[in-house]
């Protein structure tokens, strides 16, 4: 089936070397190429525009003069903190163009209004109510452009008793219940060591925006989307409703360290191997054959012969004891310790076992599956020596390439292209606007 997928590699070589969007031929084939997005977000909502830009949308990132604050978030290339060296910025703003604009000035506001008239979406993540106070609330924007879809991404949404509360990734993980399921029972609940709340919010906002877009295509009507980061993280920790009203169960549940809750017993899920860890657990019932695959594999190496006769299909986690489970697990534990995680992953594929390595970033960079599927893009950036690989295409379409086509923009990189080339300002105008701190 490989041949039916649009191949992106060649395209990237040709144009990702600079980020001017002069060559629009490749855009033309992309589904969202005809739509423009004004992206006023900071870190909180930046992924929304990135995801839509991957499908061709012309996303213009509008930063305050001097550059958005999110450029100060590290890690930085070669650990040198600099607005053009922020790795999260590279990631969140690839495929976008960038201009600087102070929307709180009369000139800045007029420019924004001009841009708004030809835009299809506006994405913003300012505190709830802020845009109203500077005269750019949804009703004002709608009057300028009735078809506009405005996407507002805020920690707790546009209304409700907590609308002005402060948050960060950690507090979102805590409040949603996500932290409660990570870590050991007798120690503090944990977060993931890499921020996820804002990525979830951005991706879910893009889903909401596309749903509103479908409606606009039918009716011509735009609307306002109110996305709460809190609810976005709730959506990935679902269960509060059914757990509270129907009962405990399903997935999730109280954190159990390296174990996974299966009713009254806890099945080991993260196992030590020779050079790290692998993820696997004993499957039973309908999925019992997945355990048998590992037993057969162990037996082929002369181990785990005690388990040869166990019929995993008739075993029910609801009735076994923890002691029985621990005994079975001790045989698997010995076996996994004999091999490296790479050996185990390769053999697991051969034997049809659902066992996976606990990968580090380095492992992922070398992962064959990702490599063969064209997951990476080669990027050039003026601040970075040579080219570098970057995770790129999360979706493979048979019709077009939806990965990185352009690197993230430098501060004000497309000011001339947009203000002079498109809006018709003169070079002199731009000089005035620059000195006045407007762009």
């Amino acid at each position, binding site marked *: 089936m490989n041949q039916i997928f649009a191949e992106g590699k060649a395209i990237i070589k040709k144009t990702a070397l600079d980020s001017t969007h002069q060559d629009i031929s490749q855009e033309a084939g992309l589904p969202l190429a005809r739509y423009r997005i004004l992206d006023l977000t900071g870190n909180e909502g930046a992924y929304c525009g990135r995801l839509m830009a991957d499908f061709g949308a012309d996303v213009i990132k509008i930063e305050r003069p001097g550059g958005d604050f999110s450029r100060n978030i590290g890690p930085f290339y070669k650990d040198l903190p600099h607005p053009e060296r922020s790795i999260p910025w590279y990631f969140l703003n690839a495929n976008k163009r960038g201009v600087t604009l102070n929307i709180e000035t009369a000139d800045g506001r007029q420019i924004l209004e001009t841009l708004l008239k030809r835009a299809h979406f506006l994405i913003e993540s300012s505190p709830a109510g802020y845009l109203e106070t500077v005269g750019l609330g949804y009703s004002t924007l709608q009057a300028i452009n009735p078809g506009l879809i405005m996407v507002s991404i805020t920690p707790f949404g546009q209304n409700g008793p907590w609308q002005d509360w402060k948050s960060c990734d950690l507090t979102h993980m805590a409040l949603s219940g996500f932290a409660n399921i990570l870590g050991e029972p007798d120690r503090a609940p944990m977060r993931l060591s890499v921020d996820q709340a804002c990525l979830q919010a951005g991706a879910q906002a893009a889903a909401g925006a596309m749903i509103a877009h479908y*409606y606009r295509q039918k009716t011509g009507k735009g*609307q306002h989307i109110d996305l709460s*980061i809190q609810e976005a993280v709730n959506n990935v920790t679902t269960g509060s*409703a059914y757990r509270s009203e129907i009962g405990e169960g399903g997935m999730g549940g109280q954190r159990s360290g390296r174990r996974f809750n299966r009713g009254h017993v806890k099945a080991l899920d993260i196992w030590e191997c020779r050079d790290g*860890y692998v993820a696997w657990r004993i499957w039973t019932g309908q999925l019992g054959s997945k355990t048998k695959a590992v037993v057969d594999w162990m037996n082929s190496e002369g181990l785990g012969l005690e388990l040869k006769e166990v019929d995993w299909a008739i075993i029910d986690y609801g009735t076994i004891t923890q002691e029985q489970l621990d005994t079975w697990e001790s045989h698997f534990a010995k076996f996994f310790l004999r091999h490296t995680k790479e050996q185990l992953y390769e053999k697991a594929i051969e034997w049809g076992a659902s066992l996976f390595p606990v990968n580090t970033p380095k492992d992922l960079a070398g992962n064959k599956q990702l490599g063969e599927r064209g997951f990476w893009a080669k990027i050039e950036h003026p601040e970075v020596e040579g080219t570098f690989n970057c995770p790129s295409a*999360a979706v493979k379409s048979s019709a077009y390439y939806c990965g990185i086509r352009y690197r993230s923009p430098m501060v004000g990189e497309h000011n001339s292209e947009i203000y002079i080339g498109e809006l018709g300002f003169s070079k002199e105008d731009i000089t005035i606007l620059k000195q006045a701190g407007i762009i």
Partner: protein
Amino acid sequence: MQNKVDNSNLHELEGALEGLNILDFTWIVAGPTATRMLGAHGATVIKIESTKRLDIFRAYQPMAGGIPGVNRSGVFDAYNHDKLGMALNLSKPAGLEIAKKLVRWADIVIENFAPGTMDRLGLSYDEAKKTKPDIIMASLSLQGQTGPSSKQGGFGTELQALAGYNNLVRWPGEAPQGMQNPYTDFVVPWFAIVAILAAVDYRNRTGKGQYIDISQLEPGVLFLTVPIMDYLLNSREAKPVGNRCDYASPHGVFRCRGDDRWCALAVFNDSQWQALCLVMDNPYWVGEESFRTLLARKRNEDELERLIEQWMVEQDAEKVMSKLQESGVPAGIVAHAQDVYDEPHLRRRGHFKKLNHPEIGEHSYEMPSWRLSLTGDLIHRPSPCLGEHSEYICTKILGMSDDEFVKLASEGVLE
């Protein structure tokens, strides 16, 4: 079929996606999450199941009233609202014929089986395209349709280790932790929705359908781009940081009064630090050199965390969270399911919506994270009982006569 429902309003739903038809072969989490969101916004979603091979969530706890039954699982119900349910035996030619008729009806076919399964069922993209040339088909398999590991089966609960997540749930110097939720399953649905609706826009303009191959692995890995690029650009493997953050201190989760009660708090600047000190009633140590500045707090973070915990452990989690937030300090209790359920803010925002399920009874569903101002929030239909809408789909959507339907049912096609 045993549960009589009023089907008269099936086509009168006002939603943004009204008119969009989705043929849904997905099961468990990733696919059903995408289609429940589309259904909630008014798309007509037909979930195809087989009585021989149930969506395994139909057998998952919790069961309503503690009584087992295929229509009683709370977790199945949570991921399958706003769908019509049909049972279909695809191993019978008449069953496959019905599936193909539904492909003609559909704008989108979506599935998340192991690669090759749809082909074996006679419903590959090539077959679907023969049936309907502009069909959009999306597959959400574990590791994608191509590549050396594509055939390896499994679930998100372990796939997330492959995608790099468990490695990042750990205290410095300790072993990685398990994750009780299949997190990668909750990354892929948003990519699927965007990809599908972009494909619909593309089809409406060009007349062309397409095949969309989304693995559960790749969107998951994409969400770890920052540590991966840190490795590729700086040759550094991300250090697990527990609950800390490079540029904030304190930044952690602290034990409160009571059983398993905890509160997270984070201090990013001087005013938040001063506010925290005030809420703590300015204990003697906050004025010491070792805690006065961010750099000092970073250097003495172990001690700082110990002192904060000493204070926090006397506090009520909810009350201290409110006090901190009212003073401008980011804070949040570590919520259990019941805490989320009872939360006044979510309730005010209408995060929960009650519907009456024929076997489970009246209970709540959780909204998408976004509210649309014009087309509203439309969770309107509980999850289907097994085969609940088979008759409606055969007679009203496919236009069969009652006799034809009865014949199919008696031949075991609708199982």
